């Protein structure tokens, strides 16, 4: 909220971010507060989803509640990713270009779709900025509006969380940022895309960036629909098919594979 008064998504964006970090009073503090709370939000959101998934709680809610949760989770990750681009340092700029190029590999409509999210040239950061500060926050708050109205954490918990973030921002200084034209030997994406980065080294961009994530997202979205899969367990193979929740196992396997890839990239490099 404070950063918005100083950040400008056009012109010398990297210099602007560096000015916020080093020149503007308490800029480093607000940047770390912003970074820490963003990460905390997405991680808590992820744990919340894992809780629903592992306890099969989606069975007890209407289908749309699960869809809302997953959509909000994915949009939160997208918010984090646009934030990563908006740092405008080398890894941010490269992440943005990779994102744009992956979208462009979609057959026929790729160019048009990528145009809706990010463009090359002087206004490179403008659309990610628009999503990060406007579309995504509004959409996420809209999706979880009932949740906010009906359930908020206890005051003590909120205070403790706030104090923790405050201390984090106070004690942990922002890392050194490389300018976009620095010749770093290797550049890494955000932690949640490290698995994707190693995948991109081996698999074509369309498969690694669009098809496989798309299949995974579809499986996750449709998960609650298989809870009554006993309906078509009539005979033979179908009996086995109906008794096993295949989609749930598929989601688990895909998720564990991706986690393995990500952890491997974190430890040994992608």
């Amino acid at each position, binding site marked *: 909220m404070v950063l918005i008064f100083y950040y400008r998504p056009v012109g010398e964006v990297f210099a602007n971010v560096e000015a916020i970090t080093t020149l503007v009073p308490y800029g480093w503090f607000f940047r770390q507060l912003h970074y820490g709370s963003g990460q905390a939000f997405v991680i808590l959101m992820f744990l919340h989803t894992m809780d629903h998934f592992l306890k099969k709680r989606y069975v007890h809610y209407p289908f749309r509640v699960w869809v809302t949760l997953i959509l909000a989770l994915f949009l939160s990750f997208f918010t984090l990713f646009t934030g990563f681009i908006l740092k405008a340092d080398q890894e941010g700029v*490269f992440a943005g*270009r*990779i994102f*744009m*190029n*992956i979208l462009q590999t979609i057959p026929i409509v790729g*160019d*048009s*779709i990528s*145009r*809706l999210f990010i*463009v*090359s*040239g002087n206004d490179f950061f403008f659309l990610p900025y628009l999503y990060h500060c406007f579309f995504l926050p509004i959409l996420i708050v809209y999706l979880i509006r009932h949740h906010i109205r009906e359930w908020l954490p206890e005051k003590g918990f909120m205070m403790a969380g706030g104090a923790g973030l405050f201390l984090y921002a106070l004690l942990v200084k922002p890392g050194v940022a490389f300018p*976009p*034209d620095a*010749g*770093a*030997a*290797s*550049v890494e994406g955000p932690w949640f895309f490290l698995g994707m*980065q190693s995948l*991109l*080294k*081996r698999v*074509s*961009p369309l498969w690694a960036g669009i098809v496989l994530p798309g299949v995974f997202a579809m499986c996750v979205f449709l998960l609650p629909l298989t809870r009554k899969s006993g309906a078509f367990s009539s005979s033979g193979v179908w009996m086995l098919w109906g008794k096993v929740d295949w989609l749930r196992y598929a989601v688990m396997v895909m998720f564990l594979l991706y986690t393995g890839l990500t952890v491997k990239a974190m430890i040994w490099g992608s």
Partner: protein
Amino acid sequence: MEKRQVHRVRLSELHEKGMDRRGFIERAIAWGVSMLCGGLFAYPVFSFMTFRKSRKRTVIFHSDEQGSDVFFKEGVYLVHEANAPRALSARCTHLGCTLNFDPAADRFRCPCHGSVFERSGKWLSGPAKKDLEHVPMKQAENGDLTAVVTL
């Protein structure tokens, strides 16, 4: 008699629900017209949002910048060849990261996904598969080389 009556009742029920033949045609026309109107509006919206001028950017290499073997400026590598200098786009043909030049191995390397290119721009290894883009250049009277890069 009774059977015929039942049949008649069913027909009229169908008519009320708009599911007999006439109703179906009416609904099909209504649906078609609304789709057409929707499309007539959606197409300009989509065209507006996805319009992009083809844009070009020029990089000028002044004569004092043409001396070194491989020179990098604003996303373009000026590489010296036996006959004439050659301009290569520094964009990796895989997903667009800026390539580094490794003078020891005389190769271009991508820091993101590890593609490697020869000094001539030819693809050697890694996920990129395609050769680097050659950028057309013009020489001005004062010796400046102007490269025109598409964005």
